[in-house]
């Protein structure tokens, strides 16, 4: 597992087990989809599939950022609060810009720009405090998680921030619109995934992430700027959060203290279901994409049936997540020496 090489070069192992490791998440996704169809044929409806993919875009985009952080041996618990905070600032900013620029494209572009800057800045802070301050990522991001969450509650005065109705009408298509028949959030998700895949598997930056996650000391001796690369993964995570927020805000046009609660855990779960190793050194973008879709799919399927008591939704989710990861790891463990 301490390989620095990305997994697209199969190592001398039994072929079946390598395949299952790679394709495990996809198989689990297919099995879950089959379950969905059996439970309710409406699952395969075009509307339902497009709803589901669109929904998974938030967690998915955030999880792609998290794949980098986790691969490089870090952890970011602040993403959910960060999303809520960025959404809050975006809404306040755009509302105040309406007077000057009107509810047009300028206002929205400025809002989007501010969102990206905030994401970048928040990620930079997480990264710098973790690396230069030599504090565990868990503690740093637990701290920023609380900070962003309370800041958005403060900004909203404990209530809900609502986007100006004029801006909302112009901005709405970013969530509800389609391009070539594909919902825009799904397109963004796909683009981020492709970019993430290239970055992680085909660039020096990606290789450094693998190396640092495998063994930080060795990476440092290999003249890798560990602190810089790690900080960059947090900044990448921040940008991903900002992108997710940019497509989240037009959905309901509001942000409150309840926005994005537990997104961090969903993102981490998506990353792990996808086959990335929590302690670092091994990351897989397409697995993460599948993981995010799977998490959304579980909720969707549970909404499509009344066979299971509502009170047990969490139980079903928990079992499916554990089984999915078990299936993927079981063959792996056997093949290990």
């Amino acid at each position, binding site marked *: 597992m301490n390989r620095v090489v990305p997994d697209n070069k199969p190592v001398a192992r039994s072929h079946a087990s390598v395949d299952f490791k790679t394709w495990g998440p996809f198989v689990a996704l297919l099995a879950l989809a089959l379950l969905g169809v059996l439970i*309710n044929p*409406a699952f395969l*409806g075009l*509307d*339902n599939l497009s*709803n589901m993919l669109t*929904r998974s875009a938030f967690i998915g985009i955030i999880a792609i950022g998290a794949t980098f952080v986790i691969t490089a041996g870090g952890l970011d618990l602040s993403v959910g609060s960060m999303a809520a905070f960025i959404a809050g600032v975006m809404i306040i900013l755009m509302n105040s810009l309406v007077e000057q620029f009107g509810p047009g494209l300028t206002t929205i572009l400025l809002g989007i720009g501010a969102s990206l800057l905030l994401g970048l800045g928040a990620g930079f802070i997480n990264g710098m405090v973790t690396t230069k301050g030599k504090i565990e990522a868990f503690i740093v991001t637990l701290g920023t998680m609380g900070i962003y969450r309370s800041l958005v*509650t403060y900004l*909203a*005065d*404990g*209530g*809900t921030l*609502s986007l100006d109705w004029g801006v909302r009408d112009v901005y709405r298509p970013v969530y*509800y619109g389609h391009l070539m028949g594909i919902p825009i959030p799904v397109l963004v998700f796909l683009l981020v995934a492709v970019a993430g895949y290239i970055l992680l598997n085909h660039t020096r930056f990606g290789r450094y992430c693998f190396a640092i996650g495998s063994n930080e000391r060795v990476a440092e001796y290999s003249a890798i700027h560990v602190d810089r690369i790690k900080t960059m993964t947090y900044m990448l995570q921040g940008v991903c959060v900002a992108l997710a927020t940019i497509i989240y805000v037009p*959905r*309901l046009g*509001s942000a*409150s*203290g*309840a*926005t994005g609660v537990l997104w961090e855990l969903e993102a981490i779960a998506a990353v792990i279901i996808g086959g990335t190793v929590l302690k670092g050194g091994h990351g897989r973008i397409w697995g993460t994409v599948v993981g995010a879709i799977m998490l959304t799919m579980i*909720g*969707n399927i*549970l*909404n*499509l049936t*009344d066979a299971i008591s*509502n*009170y047990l*939704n969490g139980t079903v989710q928990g079992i499916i997540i554990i089984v999915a990861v078990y299936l993927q790891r079981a063959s792996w463990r056997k093949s290990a020496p």
Partner: protein
Amino acid sequence: MPTKRTLAAFAAAAALGLPSFAAAQEYTIGVSIPAATHGWTGGVNFHAQQAKERLESLYPEVSITITTASDPGGQANDLEDLVSQRNIDALVVLPFESGPLTDPVRRVKDAGVFVTVVDRGLEQEGIEDLYVAGNNHEMGRVSGEYIREQLDGQGDIVVLRGIPTVIDEERVQGFQEAIEGSDINILDMQHANWNRDDGFEVMQDYLARFDRIDAVWAQDDDIAIGVIEAVRQAGREDELFIVGGAGMKDIIRRVMEGDDLVPVDVLYPPAMIATAMDLTVQHFVSNGPVVGQYILGSPLITQENAEQYYFPDSPF
């Protein structure tokens, strides 16, 4: 630590020869509420603050301290501090959860403090002097009666429930009793946790699953906001109407403007904290007795009466 600080404060007061608090006919009232983490509790905080300013200027002899806690444990600490540090004469408490706070409130009562409990009842009877609450059962009933009447007693509806709690249970019970005996068919009930995003997603799935929905009982205005967007996305605004609950300003405004999608709302006001504070002050300043229970009604908010429930400055 708190006790040490209190002792120090008393010592300082004694040394400076300040008049003792108890000597003058002054009343200190402690208000303990959950922190503003959700829309509704944000409203509670807003109205508590408004009531404090109004009551303190109206009655100079009354001083009010508001504390907010973000979990039941923190609230229990707040209660201890209010007694030991502020030496309160009365406590107005909106408990985070009934179970864990029953004993802390009882201890406040044992210290000789007048206790007003708001919204969530304690698990032991006879602790509080005054109980002020909304009526969850009635809220569900009023919603059910409205839907039954609008659909002439027959149709297919969906229900979005809140967080699985006693409050949610009572509302659903009231609702089901109201539609009992009619041909109204509940297609499904799912929990949307009084949350906008969950409301949006659950409603999207209902819309994908059912070809015809005559009405939606969202039970809560935050859920209703999510439901409205999901219905708009599906372009099925003309097919159904939505009944929320609580009295959020965004929803009340829609009702005022005569929105067909959201024709009414059912009141479950965060302003009940102000009612409780008013009554508690009356216990000290009025010659009429203030004990027992004060249960607020859950009237139907329609276009005609919406204005009196509209607070544009409130965060909720």
